């Protein structure tokens, strides 16, 4: 059975425009899927429907056999512990230490009071250090997050998602604010760690090349609808044209010649 099943998903924030229209796809356990599309296509919204950070209007999302839309508050929290999330702007608490931010990933497993008092077990702390070491930032553990570079902050974000012990991580443009070198480091870590721990991964990206290099499968989203869904190597220029609504490559070539 698929880990994530999205069935005829529809979503709108207001009456005028539908952000997602009749979106359906499945993601198998262990897959590394990229969602590409121009900005405003609905990528972030789609991702947030999977862990119900935004409410689902039409259709169903089934995660690990549970209908996400029908969960109550408590069940939803419990489900979210199984879903890690990584953000474009890292979304760390700036004034807290790296290690504290990583441990925030454990809140879903704790009672409110344990969380407020910051009661973490020694095992959890050691696990946090283990992840930081794996991500190569163990020596920054006691620094404040806002003293780290973007690439380092994103690695803290990854550690926070991984300490949840998730079945899947959802990454919303994880490298959009990073330079090419840092981007490569982050994508390499994401790929190798999710493979090693057998975690499913869905990544929103806007760079086609990176999606092709790293993912098993690509979903192309345009104006809230899926226009491409297949293995990475099947993505042709025609399909990217369809996704981005461009017809540029040939024209550009001709222009280049004339110039």
């Amino acid at each position, binding site marked *: 059975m698929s880990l994530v099943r999205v069935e005829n998903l529809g979503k709108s924030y207001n009456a005028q425009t539908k952000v997602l229209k009749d979106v359906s796809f499945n993601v198998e356990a262990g897959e590394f899927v990229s969602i590409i599309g121009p900005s405003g296509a609905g990528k972030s919204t789609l991702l947030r429907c999977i862990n119900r950070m935004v409410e689902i209007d039409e259709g169903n999302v089934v995660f690990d056999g549970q209908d996400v839309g029908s969960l109550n508050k408590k069940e939803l929290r419990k489900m979210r512990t199984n879903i890690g999330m990584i953000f474009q702007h890292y979304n760390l608490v700036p004034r*807290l*230490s790296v*290690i*504290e931010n990583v*441990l925030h990933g454990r809140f879903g497993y704790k009672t409110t009071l344990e969380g407020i008092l*910051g009661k*973490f077990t*020694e095992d959890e*702390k*050691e696990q946090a*250090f*283990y992840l930081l*070491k794996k991500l190569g930032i*163990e*020596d920054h*553990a*006691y*620094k*404040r997050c806002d003293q780290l570079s973007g690439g380092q902050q994103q690695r803290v974000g990854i550690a926070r998602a991984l300490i949840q012990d998730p079945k899947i991580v959802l990454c919303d443009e994880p490298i959009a604010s990073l330079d090419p070198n840092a981007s490569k480091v982050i994508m390499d870590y994401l790929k190798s760690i999710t493979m090693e721990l057998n975690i499913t991964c869905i990544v929103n990206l806007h760079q086609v090349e990176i999606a092709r290099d790293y993912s098993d499968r690509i979903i192309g989203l345009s104006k809230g609808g899926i226009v491409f869904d297949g293995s990475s190597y099947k993505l042709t220029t025609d399909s990217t044209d369809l996704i981005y609504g461009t017809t540029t490559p040939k024209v550009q070539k001709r222009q280049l010649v004339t110039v």
Partner: protein
Amino acid sequence: MEAISISPHIKRKANGKISIKTGNKSERVMKWTISTLTLLTIMAFLFFNYDGLDLAKAIPETAYNLKVMFLEPGLSHFTWGAAFYQVGITLGLAFLSTILGAVIAFFLALMAATNLSNKWISKTVRIFVAIVRAVPTVLWVLIFAIAAGLGSEAAILGMLFHSIAYLVKAFSEAFEEVDKGIMEALKATGASWWHIVTHAVVPSTFTYLLSWTFLRFEINFSVAVAMGAAAGAGGIGFELFMASGFYFDMREVGLITYMILLLAIILELMSTRLKNRYFPATAK
């Protein structure tokens, strides 16, 4: 997992548990501040003077008084006309101390701004202002009341002092943010100090000066109410004092409170709009 627990990067607390705090100075100082204030609060409640306090009587009585005030407001010792006249006096006291304060503060701020003045003059003005600010307004008013004779002069002079102190700080900060380039360009053309002030500094800071002045007016309104009640400065504050402390007339207290509240909220709404418009980032 075994190897990690002896990692050189892990810091441990005295009890051997792994520490997770950054332990930097700012965090320590915040902790220290919070604990000190908590301690002082406990001390305060221990050392309070509780003479004549009977909570079992005071709480229901106050609740009753508040009910009468807010649900059955009315005037009995003077007329609506007189009430508006008294409000006018309070507004007048506030307005005069603000406007005079703004004019004086303008010149003092020119002396206090580091980019327009020399270091010593600036320092002297700042120290003077800090001392003036440290004396509560009511003390200034009461001191002037004997020194200059009772009357609106004492109230306005007393309120003036704090207005000046407040506005000098605000104005001089505004002056210091004037673009250096503009001033240099003018200086290069041989413009005098006064030319620079009137042609570069004032035009580029005028809206700020006005906004700050209005903010001070808002403050001065409530100060004027307070001076009326505590220092006999007249106006609606004094009527409040009479209604409550002399006639014990809760209905009148209620009506006067409503009048003050209404004006204060109008002034606050206006100054909030000014703040959002002219200083969106540093609204304080």
